[in-house]
């Protein structure tokens, strides 16, 4: 490990599982102080990790979590908006509650977290906001109408945030992640996903390091001129 994030404070949403958990471990390993957000409590927090049991769809709870972070850490350097849910289902039989959850968590959750982070980053005069998007936004797979729309929306939000936040040196970018073996993926028909993967320019599942690589790029102090971008993994194009 290089200590790339030594002295940095990073926030990861959806921190307890899947890509979020992998990101927490990576950032801690690289020396960051990490504030993880998820709905559940965490019992054995590793050194350098502070957990905030917060529902990202609760605007007031998110606001006060960032106030606690400001008191505890003094600032926030990097935010990774990872919290998301996916129900893949034909639109005509998609349960309304699942549809609502995708909009609430994937879109509104990203919005609430980003705006609170931006308030702190504005005072510091710098910051990096990174959204975890999806190949679904570009590939538009059957069953993912709403999920794909929310992930496309995340990229669009990042583009608008970029304009609003550029005056105080805060960038906002999105990683269009391809399928990666996590618990979220395990809930879905592997044969369907295999068929999508086979058609990618780089026909393999993503590895955690593929994501970390783009996170490093977007989070770098040298990337102050990189904003409003979506980088897709695996050769997926916008």
């Amino acid at each position, binding site marked *: 490990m290089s200590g790339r994030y030594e002295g940095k404070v990073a926030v990861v949403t959806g921190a307890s599982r899947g890509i979020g958990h992998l990101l927490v471990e990576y950032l801690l390993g690289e020396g960051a102080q990490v504030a993880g957000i998820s709905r559940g409590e965490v019992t054995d927090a590793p050194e350098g990790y502070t957990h905030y049991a917060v529902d990202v769809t609760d*605007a*007031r709870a998110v*606001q*006060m979590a*960032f*106030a606690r972070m*400001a*008191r505890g850490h003094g600032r926030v350097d990097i935010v990774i908006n990872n919290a998301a849910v996916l129900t893949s289902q034909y639109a005509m039989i998609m349960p309304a509650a699942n549809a609502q959850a995708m909009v609430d968590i994937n879109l509104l959750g990203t919005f609430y977290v980003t705006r609170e982070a931006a*308030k*702190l980053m*504005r*005072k510091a005069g710098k910051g990096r906001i990174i959204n975890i998007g999806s190949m679904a936004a570009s590939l538009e797979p059957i069953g993912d109408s709403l999920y794909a729309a929310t992930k496309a929306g995340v990229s669009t939000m990042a583009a608008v945030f970029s304009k609003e936040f550029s*005056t105080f040196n805060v960038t906002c970018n999105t990683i269009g992640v391809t399928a990666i073996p996590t618990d979220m993926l395990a809930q879905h028909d592997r044969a369907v996903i295999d068929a999508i993967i086979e058609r990618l320019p780089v026909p393999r599942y993503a590895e955690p390091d593929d994501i970390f690589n783009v996170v490093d790029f977007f989070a770098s102090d040298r990337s102050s001129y990189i904003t409003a971008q979506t980088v897709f993994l695996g050769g997926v194009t916008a």
Partner: protein
Amino acid sequence: MTAVLTGSQIEELILGALNDVNEEQPEDERIEVGPNTPLFGPDAQIDSLALVSVIVDVETALNVDYDLPISLTDDRAMTREISPFDDVQTLKDYIVELVAEQA
């Protein structure tokens, strides 16, 4: 624990935020800051982004420094007959009201 804030402390917070924003402006665009400085509307001398900065700075101070779970821009603020953002006094009065509700 929620801290108690007086009206004059709240006014200081607002004027501090206004002064901070003022200092970010070019010298010839700086405004006179005082208890009656207009913030919004035809008499306002600050632009919308500066007003956003003032609101965010005051709200963040209330959240972070005083542990007050207050949002200055919820529906209630937006639907009042007299906007809380008209001038320093209306903003102060609105915050005094919100702080009193937290006590």
